[in-house]
């Protein structure tokens, strides 16, 4: 319902319009209802935040984008250090990486010595965790969230 509306908000807001009240603008759009939402693409979720940021970043030219990236990396170095916080079990991470490397279900089954049905079960749980519908969306979400 409201997802479409948010998208339009983000797309039509120019950098110039952000000059005043950037902070409150962002906060009100990140969590319109003030509560945390679990879905990958719902308002307040990391996926939504990244989409919002992406929509704003495209409005900057290349040197400005690089400068922002440099400053950001410097200020949030401790957030990005070390291995990614695991939301997945070891086995799920394994399957995610094998999938991203281009292996089919059959190939993953052969590598991990488990049946294709077991992989299907794992994918189902992983999609549930990520709020995605299929393996392609799962991989896309994993990249958008910096898990891969």
């Amino acid at each position, binding site marked *: 319902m409201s997802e479409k509306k948010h998208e339009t908000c983000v797309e039509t807001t120019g*950098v110039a319009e*952000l*000059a005043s009240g*950037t*902070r409150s603008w*962002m*906060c009100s759009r*990140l*969590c319109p209802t003030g509560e945390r939402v679990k879905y990958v693409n719902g308002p*307040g*979720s*990391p996926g939504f*935040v*990244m989409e*919002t*940021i*992406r929509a*704003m*970043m495209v*409005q*900057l*030219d290349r*040197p*400005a*984008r*690089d*400068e*922002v*990236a*440099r*400053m*950001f*990396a410097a*200020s*949030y170095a401790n*957030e*990005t250090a070390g291995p*990614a*916080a695991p*939301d997945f079990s070891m086995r799920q991470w394994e399957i995610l990486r094998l*999938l*991203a*490397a*281009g*292996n*089919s279900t059959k190939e993953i089954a052969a590598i991990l010595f488990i049946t294709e049905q077991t992989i299907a079960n794992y994918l189902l749980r992983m999609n549930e965790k990520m709020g*995605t*519908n*299929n*393996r*392609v*969306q799962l*991989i*896309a979400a994993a*990249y*958008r*969230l*910096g*898990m*891969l």
Partner: protein
Amino acid sequence: MNATQSRDSLVAVTMMLNVLDAAMDALTGQDRSRVARAFVHKYGSKISDDDAPTLTATQWRVLRALADGYSTQQCVFRLGMAYRTISFHIEQITRKLNANNRTHAVAEAFRRGML
């Protein structure tokens, strides 16, 4: 670059950093680290243009639809092309990205900073 341009650019950079700080403030725990990682991954690495193959406008549209998790049949409705046409475009995208299948193609596109 003249003085006005560089000042505008500085303002834009400052505002964007402000927005990012606000975004990070609104996030906690794992979400916070995920967004930080995703941001650095997407904008921090310098990806050379040779890494990204040249796709036609239609191939880009199909690739974006794939990244949104659309099936071939759903692409038919979204893009208004025939099923076989979509299949053909997916094959071409997969070939250009040296991928084994559509999931791999989307993964490669992300890895090369195309999405």
